[in-house]
């Protein structure tokens, strides 16, 4: 049975249900136990599953991931949390040099099925150090999935699938979606495939590639453009690594025009790789250069309200981008 719930409730429910189903699943991180998490994503788990399975860790991202990796080697399926993407620095080696490469360096002798939940994204007044997107540091490295759900349905289904996946996974949850995104979510356990982009809206005139919080803004803009006579196909990437080349390329070949929208800074954002893929596989189909609408190349995100507004991609900027592409 599906009800309408928020993104954060979907995350919370996925954790509750999967931990009930599989006692190898455990969570650890800062403030997620007794405190229920900064945003309450883990509310109620401590009370239900106890201190062993819901561990308030010391303030040390390195060992949060290190302990999770180790526990995964003896059969657990740990779901460590990094409280804000901005603070993942201490865990970059554990994530990329250890988790992502452990299977490779042991030729499959060890596998590391951990799912790292990370809260990211701007637009909530968090300012520098509480707004950052750094998905590409991870999407660049082979061996670890980078997921960015945009709806409550995907949040639940992808989180469950991630926990069951044998690969290490980075599961990025956009803080702006937690309470603003609402949608139908089945009450039961289900999974969503981890390497498929989702066509959120079909259209023939242009393709917009996006993910995370931007998806809903793009959807709104697409509806508005529809009124103006332009039908945009909206593709929600869902997975930044690996990318679903097939869906991306197919859509671009069909519409011949492509706009990429992300809130990450422009240079070397995931948009760069998307352009490169389209250049490789849809070159002869494109009627216009692929356009990128992104955050500016400045440290994300300056605090003062006018500065934050300047940084963030919003519906108006998206509409302008779509108009520009349509007019090319």
């Amino acid at each position, binding site marked *: 049975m599906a009800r309408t719930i928020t993104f954060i409730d979907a995350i919370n429910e996925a954790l509750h249900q999967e931990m009930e189903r599989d006692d190898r699943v455990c969570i650890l991180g*800062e*403030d997620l*136990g*007794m*405190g229920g998490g*900064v945003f309450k994503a883990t509310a109620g788990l401590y009370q239900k599953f106890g201190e062993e399975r819901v*561990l*308030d*860790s*010391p*303030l*040390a*991202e*390195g060992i949060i991931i290190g302990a999770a990796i180790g526990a995964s080697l003896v059969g657990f399926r740990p779901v460590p949390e990094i409280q*804000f993407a*901005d*603070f993942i*620095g*201490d865990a970059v080696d554990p994530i990329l040099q250890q988790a992502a490469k452990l299977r490779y360096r042991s030729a499959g002798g060890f596998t590391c099925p951990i799912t790292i939940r990370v809260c990211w994204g701007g637009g909530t*007044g*968090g*300012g*520098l*150090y*509480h707004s950052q997107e750094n998905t590409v540091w991870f999407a660049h490295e082979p061996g670890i999935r980078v997921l960015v759900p945009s709806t409550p349905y995907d949040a639940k289904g992808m989180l469950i699938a991630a926990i069951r996946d044998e690969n290490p996974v980075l599961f990025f949850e956009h803080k702006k979606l937690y309470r603003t995104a609402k949608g139908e979510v089945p009450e039961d356990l289900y999974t969503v495939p981890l390497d498929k982009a989702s066509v959120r809206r079909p259209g023939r005139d242009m393709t917009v590639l996006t993910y995370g919080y931007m998806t809903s803004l793009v959807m709104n803009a697409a509806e508005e453009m529809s009124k103006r006579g332009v039908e945009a196909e909206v593709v929600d990437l869902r997975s930044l690594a690996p990318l679903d080349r097939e869906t991306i390329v197919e859509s671009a070949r069909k519409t011949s025009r492509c706009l990429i929208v992300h809130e990450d800074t422009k240079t070397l954002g995931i948009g760069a790789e998307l352009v490169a893929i389209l250049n490789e596989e849809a070159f002869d189909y494109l009627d216009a250069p692929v356009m990128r609408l992104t955050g*500016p*190349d*400045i*440290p994300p995100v*300056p*605090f*003062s*309200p*006018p*500065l934050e*507004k*300047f*940084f963030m991609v919003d519906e108006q900027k998206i509409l302008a981008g779509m108009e520009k592409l349509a007019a090319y």
Partner: protein
Amino acid sequence: MATKVNRATAVGETSASRLSPELLLGLYRMMVKCRMCDEKARILFRQGKYAGNFYSNVGQEAGEVGAAYSLRDDDWVAPSHRDWTSNIIKRAPLKYCFAQLYGKADSPDRGKSTPAHMGYPELHVITPASTIAAQLMIGTGVAWGLRRQGKDSVVVSFCGDGATSIGWFHEALNFAGVHQLPMIYVVQNNLWAESVPLRLQTALKNLSDRAKGHGIAGVSVDGNDILDVYEAATAAIARARNGEGPTVLECKTYRWYGHSEIDPAKYRMKEEVEEWKRKDPIPRFEKYLAEHKLLDDEQKKQVRDEITREIDEAVEFAEKSPYPAPEEALEHVWA
């Protein structure tokens, strides 16, 4: 420094306990100022006057003031998220401190950093990042630089109990130990790191024992006793100036409110909070001063009135200060 007063009620009597009335009243005044500014900052946030968040220092003023009050202009402070008041103690004009909260163009960082993450370059207060313990590494580097320049300036850095778990805390202490740097690591142990209690943070009882892992000096004091803190800090600073190396100074204290203004802190027991509020460092010091005939009710009122006026002016300044222009976002990325 004229007459010296003998400290009678504070713990850990030492030879350094004879402090001048001016100094004692200065410490007092500064604690009250920090308290009142912080409470004002909280009110303004609740009134929706500024965005972002704020990390109150209320309850921990003895550690803040005791450690940094007597620093010289050329000494450095490396604050963390909870030490907005470091700027005040280092004598930054209040108007800029409040402009910082508002993210206005007159804040030292022109609205770039969040309200609580304030620095003041002219006064050698390092603009903090949120990253826990980063300030300790940078502060340690400053101390290394100062020592290499043959200066006798020191660096006081602040952090919490939680910060002592992250690796960079240890890298900083270890480096300072090797080079005997003029560093004072003030650990404001308020028993909680956000919602995580000390027993889940470490197996230690005294966080000054972190020093033992690096062969440097460590001392734990009653962080709600301004004189206890002041004396230990003064000794540590003197040793640092003298080339005798770094110190970890643990102040055992308590955070009165939530981790930040959006945290109701339901994970703590009401009794614990109440107990600690009874240990409020300000009335405690007032009692001491009164006993030594240094403070009466009238003077108390006068101190508060003066500070209230100062705060009101500062808030007015902050409110009138313009927001930065949107394009300010593009400035200062590259030199």
